[in-house]
């Protein structure tokens, strides 16, 4: 009996541009359990983002099957996918993707609006999420009034505000300096300790070190899938607890 949180079976992504056919993913098999902390690495153009977007239900594969919590995502319609993005997944982007004209609080509130929560509850939760990322004194600032690290923290607060089981971060530190990057990684690690499943795409070995499992991709295929010592220690500990 499998109880994988994420189960990718032969995932393919083909882009057809005119006469040119581009295989971005060429049959990816990947199983991810609850509470794992995975880093996906690989050279530029290898298909990391494409894979992340498929896992995050932002994009749909052209082949293969994707099971999330045992449900076949490939068979879901747009509205069901939107609901999964809203409730199950918190996505953190390299370029933050915040609404430029809305302040931090409203950006964080947004997923709760689409969830349909009443205003007072929304504000309460959004404030709490911003507090948790250390931005309690920047709530009314708009993105262009925040530093890069602060923006990414707003994005993380937004990703977390709905209490999703999976956090996906596509090069979350790519636009940040090393120190700020470390702070963000610290945040993600805390989340993992609280029980969230975390998948992070990165180029940097130091960043990948935080993870307990490193999946390397090359040319749209998985090249290696290694559990780090730290990761092994984690899972052993988990076995003991269970």
């Amino acid at each position, binding site marked *: 009996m499998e109880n994988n949180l994420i189960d990718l079976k032969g995932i393919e992504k083909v882009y057809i541009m005119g006469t040119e056919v581009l295989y971005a993913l060429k049959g990816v098999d990947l199983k991810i359990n609850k509470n794992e902390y995975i880093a996906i690495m690989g050279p530029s153009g290898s298909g990391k983002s494409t894979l992340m*977007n498929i896992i*995050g239900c*932002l*994009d749909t594969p052209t082949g293969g099957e994707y099971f999330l919590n045992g449900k076949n995502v490939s068979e879901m319609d*747009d*509205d069901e996918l*939107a*609901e999964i*993005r*809203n*409730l199950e997944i918190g*996505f953190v*982007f390299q370029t933050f*993707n*915040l*609404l430029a*004209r809305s302040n931090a609080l409203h950006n964080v509130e*947004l*997923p709760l*609006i*689409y*969830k*349909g929560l009443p205003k007072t509850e929304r504000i309460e939760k959004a404030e709490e999420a911003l507090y948790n990322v250390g931005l309690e004194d920047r709530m009314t600032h708009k993105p262009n009034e925040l530093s890069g690290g602060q923006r990414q923290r707003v994005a993380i607060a*937004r990703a977390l505000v*709905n209490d999703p089981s999976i956090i996906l971060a596509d090069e979350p530190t790519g636009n940040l300096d090393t120190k700020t990057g470390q702070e963000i990684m610290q945040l993600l690690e805390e989340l993992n300790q609280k029980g969230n499943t975390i998948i992070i795409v990165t180029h940097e070995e130091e960043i990948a070190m935080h993870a307990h499992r490193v999946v390397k991709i090359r040319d749209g295929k998985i090249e290696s899938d290694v559990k780090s010592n730290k990761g092994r220690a984690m899972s052993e500990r988990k076995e003991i607890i269970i």
Partner: protein
Amino acid sequence: MPVTELIRIAFNTLRNNKIRAMLTLSGIVIGVFSIIAIMTLLNALQAGIEGGLNSLGSNTFQVQKFPAMQFGDAHSRNKFRNREDITYDQGKRLKEKATLYKYMSIEDYVYQKAFKTNKAKTNPNFYVGGVEPEYLECNNKTIQYGRFITQNDLIRNSKVAVIGMDAVEKLFPNVDPIGKDIIIDNNQYKVIGVFQKEGEGFGQSNDNFALLPITTMQQVYGKNNRSMNIAIQAPGKEEFNESVENIVTVLRSIRGDKPGEADSFEIFSNESLIGQVNSFTKYFKYGAGFISFIALLAAGIGIMNIMLVSVTERTKEIGIRKAIGAKSGSVLIQFLIEAVILCELGGIIGIVLGIVTGNLLGMYLNSPVVIPYDWVVIGLVVCSAVGIAFGVYPAYKAAKLNPIDALRYE
């Protein structure tokens, strides 16, 4: 997603693009303005006309040689002109033979007269009427002071006059006119009464006249070349149609109209006049409706254009919203509401400007101030419809965007 939130988003977006929103609005404003202004003006005119007609008195109708309003060509005007005049004699016989009426007032008018006293003179835009005592009931008029013409005056051909307030103001300022003499066409009459002031209607005074006993009038001005007006009051609302029928039958026989031939006279009432006014103003309404339709069509296309631009500009925003869980429906409604609010704002501005302009024009023509509530509602509904009709395609385009493609859009 709650509607209040969507409305808030829409207003924020519009506020961020004020000038563009204003320009887009202007088409809607023009379309709504033109129809509301014309409707307001026509309603004001109509209220004015109806107010004027009400002076005819309730359940009252009139018999004349000419119709009260003529829109026809020269041919149809000739038709009326060739009719035999309605004489005082015919009127008197009608009064005797007709059975179903309460009051009947035979009236004989001459126009463009100047009234004089020894000291003063009016402009030659006053008129003289020869009337009977029933004039008061049939025309819903009241004497302010003095007395009205009596049956006795008729029998004796008394040289007396009851005058309107304009004549009082011009000829007898600061004097009691009762018992004084007034000269019209070199004939001297004694003023016995004064009418209540009626004020102006459509830029014309309603108080520039003198009334004489009709017998006196016929003696002074002769019996020929003038056609009488006959005002008849029916016994009640229920008997109105029967009363008209009775008068028509009797008058036809008096005037020798042959069976199968049309009446040689016109009959009209407040109601039929209002109907005629309506059928006349109808064409203005069609015209205004057509202009508005064209303007709103153009405005709608403008709105569609701007919404398409807006969708393209905000592709990234749409991508972000979808990435964090907005369903296609939410995005669709967000853009639809934006288009509808844009149209409604234009509509409200157009309605306000239209009502103000229509009423200013109406006031210039001495019509009362009106608000055409039905057209306000129609205007708002049409604006929403325009917003939806022309907003739905851009909104659909936004809603159908693939989240990842939208996010990647630069």
